[in-house]
């Protein structure tokens, strides 16, 4: 397959990142893990997961898992838990590229730097 103009080669570094990403274990096993760790509502869980409140309530109260996209929801919840636990370790440059923080939010997250 010929490479299109401007494409970076899919080299050894990219292959390692690809393998790491697709096998990443950041997902949690059940939304209850996050619910027990943090005082948030089921509505907030649903917003993070990207499902409806009804789907999240069914999942939480009846252990009735969503048949569609469950792994996507669990990965999103896992990403949020990672953020909660490790946001202090994320360099300012990464914040600026990924989700730039308004000064007020930056002061709350990193009070010792303001």
């Amino acid at each position, binding site marked *: *397959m010929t490479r299109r103009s401007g494409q970076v080669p*899919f080299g*050894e570094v990219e*292959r*390692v990142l*690809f*393998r790491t990403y*697709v*096998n990443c274990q950041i997902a949690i096993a059940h939304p209850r893990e996050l619910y027990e760790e943090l005082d948030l509502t089921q*509505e907030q869980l*649903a*917003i993070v997961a*990207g*499902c*409806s*409140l*009804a*789907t999240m*309530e*069914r999942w939480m*109260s009846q252990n*009735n*898992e*969503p*048949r*569609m*996209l*469950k*792994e*996507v929801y669990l990965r999103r919840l896992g990403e949020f838990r990672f953020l909660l636990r490790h946001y202090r370790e994320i360099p300012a440059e990464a914040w600026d590229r990924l989700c730039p923080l308004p000064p007020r939010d930056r002061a709350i997250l990193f009070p010792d730097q303001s």
Partner: protein
Amino acid sequence: MNSDASASQPSLGDRNSNPSAFLSDEGVGLLFGQNASVVVIPPDFAAAQLPKYSIGSRCRLAPQTHSEWGTIIGQIYAPVFKDLGKSRQKADWWSWIYLVLLDADSPSRGWIIADWVDEEDLELLPAGQDLSASDESEAL
């Protein structure tokens, strides 16, 4: 003891011939979960039941603390796994899942437009509660 976690992974050179060689045994499983690798079409699939709700049906998600409501815009026939053990070789059964476009006043519409719902978790909206749909169509 080999502590290199990547030792069991296929060679990076395999990527062009088989990209999925990098995946774990369960696969990514984004659509049907981690049992995706054992989903097979059953022999009697053609005789499977028809969907209970048609496209355009006005439905309510089975009442929870907060109900949701909207219009069916998609149907898929999907496997059901009651035991999520890795030894499963086939689905326990198949049933319908519906994509429901949430009404503007449904609680979750603030962050999603539509959601997937099992047939058993849906019920038809009583005709008297169907006002928001006609209001929306008039507004268009």
